[in-house]
């Protein structure tokens, strides 16, 4: 994992390291099993096209979990994810990059914790935000 990041080192406007994902259909099947979401639009092309989609699409909840992976990688061993969520605004497809990104929007100390607020989102290859959301993480202090 990357070096530990500390509360004091973060300021509003900072962009956190981005995480680029690219799902194979195999990964979507693994996610179906791991999450218990077996809706066929995510792995059966004929079924997906029968519902009017151009092909299979990436699960929204998987993109949410990708944002969680990005946060986990950034906050290091001593950080904790407190809250994170996103809306599913646009579809993403397998074999296309899904870029997970985040920008710090604020920081505060509350209940003995050092909290950092962020805007987080996934972006498709055209640069459109397909899953915009927000997050709160707790970071360790140097103090």
């Amino acid at each position, binding site marked *: 994992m990357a070096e530990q990041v500390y509360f004091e080192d973060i300021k509003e406007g900072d962009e956190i390291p981005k995480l680029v994902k690219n799902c194979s259909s195999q990964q979507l099947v693994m996610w179906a099993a791991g999450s218990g979401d077996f809706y066929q639009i995510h792995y059966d092309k004929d079924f997906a096209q029968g519902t009017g989609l151009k092909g299979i699409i990436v699960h*929204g909840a998987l993109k949410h979990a990708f944002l*969680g992976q990005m946060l986990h990688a950034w906050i290091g061993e001593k950080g904790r994810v407190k809250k994170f969520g996103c*809306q*599913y605004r646009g579809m993403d497809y397998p074999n296309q990059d899904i870029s997970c990104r985040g920008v710090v929007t604020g920081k505060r100390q509350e209940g003995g914790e050092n909290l950092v607020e962020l805007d987080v989102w996934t972006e498709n290859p055209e640069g459109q935000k397909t899953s915009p959301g927000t997050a709160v993480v707790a970071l360790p202090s140097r103090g």
Partner: protein
Amino acid sequence: MTQPSIITDEMKAVIGRESEPQTVEVDRTAIRMFARAVGHTDPVYYDVEQARKRGYRDLPCPPAYLGTPVFHPAGAAPSPFAGFKSPFKRVLNGGTEVEYFEDICAGDVVTSTTKIANLSERQASLGPMLIIQSETTYRNQQGKVVAIMRGTALQY
């Protein structure tokens, strides 16, 4: 002209009603499977010794994993939607938010209850749409609230 509301009094009556509790298991195999499906490479989700070294009781749940509901072949899972008749058949997942209050680790037995927190409607490009906001509360074996998941379902 104002469209008549698709939200009936019968539907409104369901808002806030808690579902029956559902048992959610958190075990090592499921944590590893979930972490692998996402693509996590941090050994904390795979190696119990690593997890303990880092202060967890056992493998911790990766972000967004809140355990696996126990499957019963004989019956449907408890739902807050009992008595709720939607005029629509198609569903889209509109969004997910998870808030954590405690670590959740392998070996925990969690109980979840779900309620509909709000109903609203709008004219979308797909036609009239019903927006269902749900809230699921997860309690561990000590009765502590460990997480709340808020979901948005779009029916059309």
